[in-house]
């Protein structure tokens, strides 16, 4: 493609960006915030990795101590994962909506490639704006935080300028990649846009990493060797990747089971809807499950800390209080982002099934039942995935739970795990309940009108 | 209608006698007026005189003797030539309905009511035709004949609606 064409594409993208609807502006704002958050976290991670030396502090050990910084950086980088899931979800909706408008451009002679590139151009724009906001936010936030905390040696902690453009470029590139990935699922013909009718069901092989990871994690507890930590790490990584990759398949199996045993129309509708598209929900549910995974793991650590010393009265252990607090804060944040992604997904799903919902309601299905059905859909998807997340973490982090059962410890850890699952499922269910306004709108008789 | 040509077409299947031809004519073209036997007889004689059909024999099946006719090569040729022609697309205007509706609109008064009455009458006839074609014993020919009539009546109705709309637009324009 020539430079002139590229310039034209950007001009067209700009024109399209100006004339947009309210929904589209809202989506764009979400995309920009997502890109900004990703930039923020990645800058934080890069920043941490670049600090040298250890300062003795009472509670800021996660930043001040040399040995802990990589872990903190990894945690910050991991926070990008839920943000990416959100970006992907919003991107899917935005792309579909935009390409629906772009069908007209196809009639005017644009090739599918042009249309796709227009999507990328839009993603680059949004990604750049988001990255800029994120950078400004990070730098300003860091200065403000250091001033507030009375940090003297600001030059030592402040992020040096050189990694900033690299992180920004990374975020913008990721935005473009997500846009390209997302547009694979939408086919634009000059006359209409249709979501690809049937995508293949997630393969059962996507469960393999999880199936491998779990035994390795368990086995590492029984091996008394120097390398058992490496084994544990390998198992944990496999399990995490496995949860992310296998969530859709787990949801599919869960939906099939629920569909087979459904005795009420609500459950049947819920199970079949999930079965038809387990991937969309799987992506966000995987993030929720990862939150449960890390949350459960944190619970095990919390037990160890609580048992070995009073974290509330001993100033030496203020470090733990702050660190665990931050961890829970991060988990809550991840959960919130995942839940936002879930909202977007629900809105999209309801928009797409508007006519059949309205037809069902017209034929006498109570709207309350349809609401129950969407709630069940969330439960069928969230429960097994979150349970697997919790179980994996328990098996990996608390071999003592099984080797040397100790009642208070078992009660705390298992209780904490259950609490995490319940919290995650409840959060997902709450989102579903909140999105019911959309459902009522989708089931309105207006949607019965033929176009 | 081109009765001689229809008879030639019916003879294309094989030799037939006059009564058989009349029966088949009425069966295959249920929408058309039944063919009087006398007309079959006189038409066949004319066709024979012109060399399009020839007498193939005489049969007697319990009743009177009947002359059986068959196509001659010249008759086959004539039939093929007819089938190859197209029917001139008739404009169908100038019918009684057209005149009545136009005059109702021209003469003023309650043209709408007149059109509604016409619509009701048309629809009543369409219901009869629909009943005839959906009857369990309706032959394929009867269904085709009903469809033919139904589509023409439908065209009348749609034209009437269109006429009213065009006229309403025109009146609006004049009143502006």
């Amino acid at each position, binding site marked *: 493609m020539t430079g002139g064409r590229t310039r034209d594409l950007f001009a067209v993208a700009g024109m399209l960006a100006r004339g947009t609807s309210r929904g589209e502006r809202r989506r764009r704002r979400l995309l920009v915030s997502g890109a900004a958050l990703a930039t923020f976290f990645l800058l934080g991670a890069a920043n941490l990795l670049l600090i040298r030396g250890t300062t003795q502090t009472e509670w800021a050990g996660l930043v001040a101590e040399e040995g802990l910084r990589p872990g903190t950086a990894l945690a910050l980088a991991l926070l990008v994962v839920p943000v990416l899931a959100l970006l992907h979800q919003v991107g899917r909706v935005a792309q579909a909506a935009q390409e629906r408008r772009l069908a007209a451009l196809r009639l005017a002679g644009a090739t599918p490639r042009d249309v796709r590139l227009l999507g990328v151009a839009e993603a680059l724009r949004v990604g750049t704006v988001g990255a800029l906001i994120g950078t400004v936010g990070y730098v300003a936030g860091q200065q403000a935080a250091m001033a507030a905390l009375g940090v003297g040696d600001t030059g030592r902690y402040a992020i040096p300028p050189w990694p900033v453009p690299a992180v920004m470029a990374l975020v913008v590139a990721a935005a473009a990649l997500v846009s390209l990935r997302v547009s694979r699922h939408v086919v634009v013909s000059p006359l209409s846009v249709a979501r690809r009718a049937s995508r293949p069901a997630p393969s059962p092989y996507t469960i393999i990493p999880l199936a491998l990871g779990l035994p390795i994690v368990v086995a590492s507890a029984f091996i008394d060797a120097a390398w058992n930590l490496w084994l544990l790490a390998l198992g944990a990584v496999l399990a995490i990747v496995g949860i992310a990759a296998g969530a859709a398949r787990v949801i599919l199996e869960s939906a099939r089971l629920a569909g087979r045993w459904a005795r009420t129309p609500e459950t049947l509708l819920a199970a079949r809807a999930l079965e038809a598209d387990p991937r969309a929900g799987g992506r966000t549910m995987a993030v929720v499950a990862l939150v449960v995974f890390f949350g459960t793991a944190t619970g095990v650590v919390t037990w160890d800390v609580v048992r070995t010393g009073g974290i509330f009265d001993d100033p030496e252990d203020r470090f733990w209080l702050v660190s665990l607090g931050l961890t829970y804060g991060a988990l809550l944040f991840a959960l919130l982002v995942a839940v936002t992604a879930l909202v977007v997904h629900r809105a999209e799903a309801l928009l797409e099934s508007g006519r059949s919902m309205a037809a069902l309601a017209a034929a006498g299905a109570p709207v309350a039942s349809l609401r129950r059905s969407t709630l069940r859909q969330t439960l069928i998807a969230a429960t097994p995935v979150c349970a697997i997340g919790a179980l994996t973490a328990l098996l990996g982090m608390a071999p003592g739970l099984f080797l040397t059962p100790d009642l208070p410890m078992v009660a705390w850890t298992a209780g904490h795990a259950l609490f995490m699952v319940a919290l995650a499922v409840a959060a997902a269910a709450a989102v579903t309940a909140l999105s019911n306004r959309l459902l009522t709108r989708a089931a309105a008789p207006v949607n*019965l009108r*033929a176009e | 209608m081109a009765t001689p040509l229809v008879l030639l077409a019916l003879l294309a299947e094989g030799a037939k006698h006059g009564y058989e031809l009349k029966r088949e004519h009425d069966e295959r073209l249920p929408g058309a007026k039944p063919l009087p036997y006398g007309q079959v007889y006189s038409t066949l004689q004319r066709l024979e005189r012109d060399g399009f059909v020839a007498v193939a024999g005489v049969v007697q099946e319990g009743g009177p003797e009947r002359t059986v006719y068959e196509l001659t090569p010249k008759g086959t040729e004539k039939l093929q030539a007819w089938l190859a022609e197209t029917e001139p697309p008739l404009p169908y205007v100038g019918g009684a309905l057209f005149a009545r509706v136009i005059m109702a609109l021209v003469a003023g008064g309650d043209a709408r009511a007149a059109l509604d009455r016409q619509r009701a009458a048309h629809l009543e006839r369409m219901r009869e*035709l629909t009943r005839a074609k959906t009857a369990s014993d309706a032959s394929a020919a009867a269904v085709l004949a009903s469809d033919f009539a139904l589509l023409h009546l439908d065209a009348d109705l749609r034209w009437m609606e269109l006429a009213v709309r065009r006229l309403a637009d025109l009146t609006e324009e004049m009143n502006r």
Partner: protein
Amino acid sequence: MTPLLQARDVSVSFGRTRALRGASLAIGAGEIVAISGPSGSGKSTLLHCLAGILVPDDGEIRYGETRLDELDEDSRTRLRREVFGIVFQFGGLVPELTAVENVAVSLMFGGLGRAEAAAAALDWLGRLGVDDCAPLRPGDLSGGQVQRVAMARALAHGPKVVFADEPTGALDSVAGEEVLGLLLGTARDHGTTVVLVTHDNRIAAYADREIVVRDGAVAASPVVTR
């Protein structure tokens, strides 16, 4: 004759658009009635009012002795589920459910157990000649098959009234007439009242009577002199 369905001076507005302005009609039990009129005349809105899907801004809707416009949403929903059946132009089937499940789910909402509902659904698919489509999803069916499944769904619970909104609009002539013939044949066998909304004169001719809607009101039935 006490009419089974009655509308009196029904008005409905959507924002500034007045879809119906004082429409009145009466339909007897067992009648098969076509509501016709040009597009935008308000005939679909009238159907939605009669079927208790929409509550009119003004006027009365009666089913027997029941005032639909005075019922709450729950009672109207129950009425629609138990006494009415509805067919739309585009089937309105749930895309994720198989044909048999689409019919069964409606019966399950009516309180039938899953196994009974599935058996009854299969029976109705058979009566409409689409039992071989039972395990397929709407996306794998032809337009005519989708409409037959939708009709099975509308008929399976033994409704007193079936409302059909342009049920043949998405089909070609032959398939449309076939499907409509099936619906009306079944309705006649069971003495079911049918209210058929259509803009197609030839479809309207399938009904016993035509009600013309024009500019949001029912046109007076003319006295025909021949």
